[in-house]
């Protein structure tokens, strides 16, 4: 899909983007809860060609022990890219980029979790990018929130996330790869949709105050859409209908 774009002359033609979407349209999103039997909670998300697994282990014993906090759980999110997930093979192991993203994902999820309910424990959130095609940090946050809920960890709300940016001078939601690479600016945002509290905000490019306002509002509206998909994924896992539909069961 995105792979043929190269460096296109125009990213938006007659109000339509190169992948056929309207400016305010999300890519197709599929979220599944409970995909990794070993984990206490897990989720899988596909957003366009971006494909991500997330597993939650915990609350469990804190290792190394000096990280233990007597007041609340230690939240440890790790964002990792499979070496075949990028156009050029990525060297296995953490990079400066993946370490930063791991940190901001931790900061984006922490406000939603009642960490004080799990003192002296550790909650591990492992994120594996298996196919990267723009918007991986935001999709990862959406999956991680579902995985945490699936693990039965007490939360104030889910966290939904999306990125949008200025492309050919216009406001585009949920950037695809070409727009991400060749667009003018990019603003990932995460929020708790129930209270509209923003838990992650990044931006690179050049935006005025009015533009920032417009982007925040655009992202918040899209987060509300994603929120419904997250809830649907959780309901699907825990509803009895699913077992009837799939028959023999997987």
């Amino acid at each position: 899909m995105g792979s043929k774009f190269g460096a296109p002359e125009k990213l938006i033609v007659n109000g339509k983007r190169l992948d056929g979407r309207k400016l305010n349209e999300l890519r197709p999103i599929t979220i599944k809860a409970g995909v990794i039997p070993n984990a206490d909670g897990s989720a899988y998300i596909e957003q366009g060609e971006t494909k991500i697994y997330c597993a939650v282990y915990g609350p469990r014993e804190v290792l190394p022990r000096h990280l233990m906090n007597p007041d609340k759980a230690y939240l440890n999110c790790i964002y990792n890219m499979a070496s075949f997930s990028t156009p050029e093979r990525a060297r296995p192991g953490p990079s400066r980029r993946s370490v930063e993203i791991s940190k901001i994902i931790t900061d984006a999820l922490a406000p939603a979790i009642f960490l004080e309910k799990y003192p002296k424990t550790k909650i591990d959130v492992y994120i594996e990018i298996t196919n990267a095609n723009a918007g991986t940090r935001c999709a990862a946050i959406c999956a991680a929130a579902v995985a945490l809920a699936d693990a039965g960890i007490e939360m104030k709300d889910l966290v939904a996330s999306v990125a949008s940016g200025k492309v050919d001078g216009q406001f585009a939601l949920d950037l695809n790869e070409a727009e991400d690479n060749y667009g003018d600016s990019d603003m990932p945002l995460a929020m708790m949709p129930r209270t509209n509290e923003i838990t992650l905000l990044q931006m690179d490019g050049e935006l005025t105050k009015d533009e920032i306002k417009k982007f925040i509002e655009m992202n918040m509206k899209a987060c509300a859409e994603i929120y419904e998909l997250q809830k649907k994924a959780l309901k699907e896992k825990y509803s009895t209908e699913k077992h009837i539909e799939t028959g023999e069961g997987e």
Partner: protein
Amino acid sequence: MAETLKPFISALLQKGKREDGREPYDYRKISLEINPLSRASGSARVKIGETEVLVGVKMDVDVPFPDSPEEGILIVNAELIPLSNPDFQPGPPTPGAIELARVVDRGIRESGAVNFSKLCIKPKEKVWIVFVDIYPINDAGNLFDAAGLGAIAALKNAVLPKYNEKEDKVLYKELTKEKLPVVHLPIMTTFGKINGSIFVDATKREESAYDARLSISTLESGASSAMQKGGTGTFTEKEILDIFDYSIEKGKELRNLLK
């Protein structure tokens, strides 16, 4: 756990039974999905029971090794990511991950499964380097066989990316229709041993209780291309030869999944 589990699993095996109702030489249900990932040159998702492994092939152009100036290069790597197993930790590859990658590597390399002489662009200067990366998604036992099957399936279905020889650039995003030259299909089968009983395709619980394991990669010809004994227990000569026969037979079953 193993201390209490072992007598139980062992007693069942003595009667030719297992915890999940299988016979000693039965695999769990195996499924294979080809090229689920668009970024990889070739990829495979293998499920054996609840075990799930993703294998991806990526290619690049590099300088050949001095002792094989006209042959492409194979590199097999496994990351035992903590996502897949509560006991795995983040960090550099563990001995277990390195053993897994090297056993899969030998099964493929020694069988001549990939015709590396066809992956030479310019002798002594430029050859294709083929990376096979193994990522477990859920480790419910027998990662060896899942990784082995995934590796050969991903290689068999891999295509080369475009290469611009003038500018010496690999166009990673543009795949050609040229298939990777895979000429043999080595299949790895792994057997466990508990108190003298032999069985195939161990679950996580059986792995935690077994004395030893033996992995054998077999070929269409009835020969083997790699073997590896693991675990602190032992095998007799007769046991190894018996396992070899089973391995050839099971290899045929699993090879059919690739056709």
